[in-house]
């Protein structure tokens, strides 16, 4: 009997499988282990992780310190991925002409049109006035002053406040007028100008100021002027309250931000594509030059910087000259990010367009021999490098009960999504495409405006629920769960993730449904898109229909919804897709390590 | 236990230096057996790094020889407690909190200390507490 340990060095984890093999005897797998990969996959730094993984596997097998006959390593090659995001649109307000934010609680209802006047200067005005109230005013004092002015004959038609006092002031007015509050930069509202204030009833949105012709009627605009203010109307759509001030040069613009170009190079030609053209344009350009040979970005942009960093890291890791490093895959995804409006007076936030880009570079220059030498020295045993990446994984996956050739595997990791195929003739093919778990986290983070990677990670990994009382939660699927003991106060009334450690509040003010949509869309746009993209590259004749079984491997295969999402996407192509169960026992883990052992055992039988 | 330990004096302190021959780990190893080599080889485990009831009694004697009667008693109670599993020690502590146990529950703990663990000093402490709690209205309501 010989004690062998198969070791799979992956991007993020190193897995080991200890087994006893002998000619003519059934291989006996003893135990498996899992440890974080040390250093970049395929580089000498991996040796430490390999040694740890071997030691762990032996400990788990109840044979610590046992003499190992052979360690089997996969032929791992370095893969480096990067992630960047560019915001490509912005809203700019000039001359403080518009306040379109959504204070939680505006006061009053309706539309008021008049000339802007500071509270202190109230009195004696002819015609309707919109009162502008600065910081530090007390709600009782403000209401009192407005009521007095109305008594004196001033036609107060609306008010704009600095503090969060709109309901308080409106409730104290003898005459009901719309009041907009929480305008942080109220001191910049131009005075003596015609302005309109509109507040919609609770649960409704404004009608007049969010409509071009409504604005035209309000401010008596001609056709050309109406055309000019139409961006204002668009920008105000969907808000419950708004203020528009008519000034000589005032304007709202919604413009594209030039964020540089990407140069995508194929075998025969190069195309420049503007990042601000969006994800579809970028992916289309990549399709046109296929097969992609390299991508470069413009220096000084996030994307350019990210691509350069990816390249530099690979240079550091492999020692190859920069010129030889090629970026072989890019995934662009459209997203929305909340951005504070430039020139806004109330800290208004608009949801701007952005493009997220994942890139990946790999090299064929593996330095596994160095790893092997170091492991051999540390453990004092024979170390063999064997098996082309992908090939071994497929063989391991094939031990999943019910799977059959042709078989493809998809391994969705943190930085890249990998696919491999074993066809009926025993040929294998493998690809790596950019974009995986990290990109999903980033999309969730930015789209929910969390600015909190941990919270985004939690949303990605766990189902959602709403804590409806101290004794029950409503899960995202609508089911209700009751608790005998009161839930902790910090989750009361909140949207939470349901984690093994308990309920964790998600710092958002949106309903569960909205958060769920963001999460699933992010996963769909990355994992589903990439699974299909990668499979199409390895599928016979590029046709998904010709794939027999698709087996999902790796950590993402353990996700609570990704496997089902991928399977649903593949179903129309007549593909059987499921979660790997290596040797019927290991689940989606250990395919490569077990595959190495199997291949080794097979070689013993038939040398 | 050897006979010369009854007359331990302050001069015997520290035992780890002056009387190492009196010390054993719970698995019977000598102090000198706790070496790095033994740790690395797995011969010494966490189980070895605990104090034995015998050692606690010795330390209690030294404390008493310094006139520290109560510290000596504490060592004696501790010696009895070495046999009680961690979780049960904590459970007993929680049961001794005010308004946490009925008179019957307190007696149950005392009986268990005495019966299962031969912890007579600890049992006496619990019974004494039960008496005081009864007088000061600190027992849990019988339900």
């Amino acid at each position: 009997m010989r004690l062998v340990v198969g070791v799979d060095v992956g991007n993020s984890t190193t897995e080991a499988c200890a087994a006893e093999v002998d000619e003519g005897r059934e291989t006996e797998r003893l135990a498996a282990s899992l440890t974080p990969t040390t250093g970049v996959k395929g580089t000498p730094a991996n040796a430490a992780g390999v040694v740890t993984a071997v030691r762990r596997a032996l400990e788990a097998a109840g044979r610590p310190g046992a003499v190992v006959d052979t360690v089997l390593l996969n032929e791992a090659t370095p893969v480096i991925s990067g992630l960047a995001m560019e915001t490509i649109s912005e809203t700019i307000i000039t001359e403080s002409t518009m306040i379109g934010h959504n204070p939680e609680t505006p006061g009053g209802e309706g539309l008021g049109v008049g000339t802007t006047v500071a509270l202190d200067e109230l009195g004696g005005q002819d015609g309707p006035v919109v009162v502008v109230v600065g910081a530090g005013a007390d709600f009782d004092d403000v209401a009192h002053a407005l009521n007095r002015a109305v008594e004196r004959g001033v036609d107060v038609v609306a008010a704009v406040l600095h503090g969060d006092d709109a309901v308080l002031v409106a409730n104290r007015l003898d005459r009901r007028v719309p009041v907009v509050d929480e305008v942080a930069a109220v001191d910049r509202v131009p005075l003596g100008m015609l302005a309109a204030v509109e507040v919609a009833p609770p649960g409704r949105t404004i009608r007049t100021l969010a409509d071009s012709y409504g604005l035209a009627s309000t401010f008596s605009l001609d056709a050309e002027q109406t055309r000019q203010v139409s961006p204002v109307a668009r920008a105000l759509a969907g808000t419950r309250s708004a203020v528009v001030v008519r000034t000589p040069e005032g304007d709202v613009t919604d413009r594209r931000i030039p964020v540089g170009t990407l140069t995508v190079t194929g075998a025969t030609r190069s195309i420049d594509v503007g990042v601000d053209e969006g994800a579809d344009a970028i992916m289309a350009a990549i399709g046109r030059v296929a097969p992609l040979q390299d991508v470069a970005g413009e220096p000084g942009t996030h994307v350019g910087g990210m691509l350069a960093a990816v390249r530099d890291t690979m240079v550091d890791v492999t020692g190859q000259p920069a010129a030889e490093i090629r970026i072989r895959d890019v995934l662009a995804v459209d997203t929305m990010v909340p951005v504070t409006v430039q020139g806004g007076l109330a800290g208004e936030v608009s949801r701007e367009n952005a493009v997220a880009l994942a890139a990946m570079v790999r090299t064929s220059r593996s330095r596994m021999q160095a790893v092997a030498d170091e492991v051999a020295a540390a453990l004092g045993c024979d170390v063999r490098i064997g098996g082309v990446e992908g090939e071994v994984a497929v063989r391991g996956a094939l031990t999943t009960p019910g799977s059959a050739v042709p078989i493809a595997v998809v391994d969705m990791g943190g930085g890249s999504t990998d696919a491999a195929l074993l066809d009926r003739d025993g040929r294998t093919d493998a690809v790596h495409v950019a974009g995986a778990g990290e990109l999903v986290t980033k999309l969730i983070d930015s789209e929910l405006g969390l600015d909190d990677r941990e919270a985004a990670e939690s949303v990605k990994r766990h189902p959602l629920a709403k804590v409806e009382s101290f004794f029950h939660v409503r899960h995202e699927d609508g089911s209700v769960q009751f608790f005998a003991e009161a839930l902790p106060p910090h989750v009361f009334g909140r949207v939470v993730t349901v984690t093994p450690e308990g309920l964790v509040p998600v710092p958002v003010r949106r309903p569960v449904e909205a958060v769920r949509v963001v999460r699933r869309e992010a996963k769909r746009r990355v994992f589903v898109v990439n699974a299909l993209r990668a499979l199409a590259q390895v599928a016979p004749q590029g046709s998904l229909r010709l794939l027999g079984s698709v087996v999902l491997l790796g950590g993402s295969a353990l996700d609570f919804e990704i496997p089902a999402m991928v399977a649903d996407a593949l179903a129309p192509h007549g593909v059987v897709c499921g979660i790997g169960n290596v040797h019927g026992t290991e689940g989606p883990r250990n395919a490569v390590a077990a595959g190495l052992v199997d291949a080794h055992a097979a070689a013993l039988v038939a040398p | 236990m050897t006979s010369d330990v009854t007359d331990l004096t302050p001069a015997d302190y520290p035992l780890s230096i002056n009387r190492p021959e009196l010390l054993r780990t719970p698995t019977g190893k000598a102090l000198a057996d706790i070496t790095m080599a033994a740790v690395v080889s797995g011969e010494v485990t966490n189980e070895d790094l605990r104090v034995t009831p015998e050692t606690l009694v010795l330390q209690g004697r030294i404390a008493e020889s310094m006139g520290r009667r109560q510290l000596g008693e504490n060592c004696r109670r501790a010696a009895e407690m070495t046999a009680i599993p961690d979780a049960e020690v904590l459970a007993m502590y929680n049961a001794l909190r005010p308004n946490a146990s009925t008179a019957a529950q307190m007696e149950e703990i005392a009986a268990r200390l005495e019966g299962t663990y031969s912890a007579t000093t600890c049992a006496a402490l619990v019974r004494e507490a039960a008496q005081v709690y009864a007088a000061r209205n600190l027992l849990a309501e019988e339900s």
Partner: protein
Amino acid sequence: MTAVEPRPQTSEVRPSKRTEVLENRPVNLDGFVEEWPEKGLVAMESDFDPQPSVRVEDGRIVELDGRTRDRFDFMDTFIADHAIDVDTCEAAMATPSVEIARMLVDPRASRADVVALGRGLTPAKILDVVKLMNVVEIMMGIQKTRSRRTPANQAHSTSAKDNPIQVAADAAEGAVRGFAELETTLGVVRYAPLVAIGLQVGGQVGRGGVLTQCALEEATELDLGMRGITAYAETISIYGTESVFVDGDDTPWSKAFLASAYASRGIKMRFTSGTGSEVQMGNAEGRSMLYLEIRCILMAKGAGVQGLQNGSISCIGVPGAVPGGIRAVAAENLVASWMDLECASGNDQSFSHSAMRRTSRLLPQMLPGTDFVCSGYSAVPNKDNMFAGSNLDTEDYDDWNTIQRDMQVDGGLRHVREDVILQVRNKAARALQAVFAELDLPAITDEEVEAATYADSSDDYPDRDVLADLEGARSVMERGVTGLDLVKALERSGFGDVAENYLQVLRQRVSGDLLQTAAIFTGDFVPLAAINDANDYAGPGTGYRLTGERWEQLKKLRHVTSAENPEEEVV
């Protein structure tokens, strides 16, 4: 409104320029209140404290300080039955208080005699004695009665971000500067295992034999102790009235049981109490702060715990605000020492806006020396101090060292050259990096090691992936990682000397030597307790004297002009 905002001008009268200057002095940001003795808002001189008395019948105390046994509350009962020596109490109580007070001061009365006499005294009698003493006499008393001969010091090593690398680096620096014990606590409690590991590894890098603890709720604290990740425990609070004790969800019996539980696992432990806590919680039962604290001290003694952390601790703002309050705080340290307990003597909480007041509050412990002058000198900047700030922090290191040198007193610290500090900080961070790698905990980057080497506060470190760290912390508990696993990890990763230091600390658990009164470790792993290093002060020329090699160490400061070559500084 924050505490550093100046007081609003209330008077209509135009103030003088001088008044303006005085108004702006930091001391006027402190709060001061008038006494209210009926409610216990009084330091130590109150007409409402009981008169001393004791009566013994059938070998049992049946009257204590004016109360008969049928009227005892549980503190009276516990003290009468466990703390006071029944055989000697009637004779001891018959000794005039002034006689006893003089014995505490008079070098010709031996420590042994005055401690023996103390075993028979009731709380009111003890109060009656210390009330006769002024603050210098109290210091004389501490100098004589403190249990260990060699004074020591204790540090807080915490991080506002619960960053284990920061805790390790500051623990290492603290240890090399001389702290004998290091204490930590958390902002996010779930971080505890990683921070406790950081503290232990860092401490053993700085100086082998440093003892560490992590202040948490009892179950987790005991668990970390039993695994050998921490070495002692301290935050076991006791109170001077029955009602406040019960509000704290404990009784003298539950705490006594807990004391034995720690000892049964070979873990050093002390209780914590302090003047002001009862009145702060509104239930002083009309007794002075010091009277109630004396009850705590006797309760601790009765429980058989080896020591006590007292000196008001987290309630220092209360005695600090009443007349004679800091004298009372010094007196409570004296009583703890006199009752033959190890005394970790406070100076561990934000006390005053005034640097002068902070120093004067410190001197009654620093000058006579105590078992731990500070029971928490902040070895991190106060803003990183998760115990809510200390009376002294890292900014005060050079001042402290200078006062030691000026007064020729040993406050437990020393000046250490920059290169040595950088070296131990770097090594602590690297050792922790190796341990984390060995244990599959979230990696510590070289950038973090570099930051730790040169950092001052948590702001100087890269942010950690908190989620991953918390996951790692959970796995430490779940996998049952023990101190021995850490030793092995250190040994395997080339930190054999640190591993050896740590193993020595763990090994001591078998001997129980650290369970004795005031036990600490020397750098050579010799347990130093109030047995083999018992205080032998007997007047001038005796007891601990700052001389020889240690004095040479303490003569060093950051900048001292060389006598040999005045153009250079001594290094």
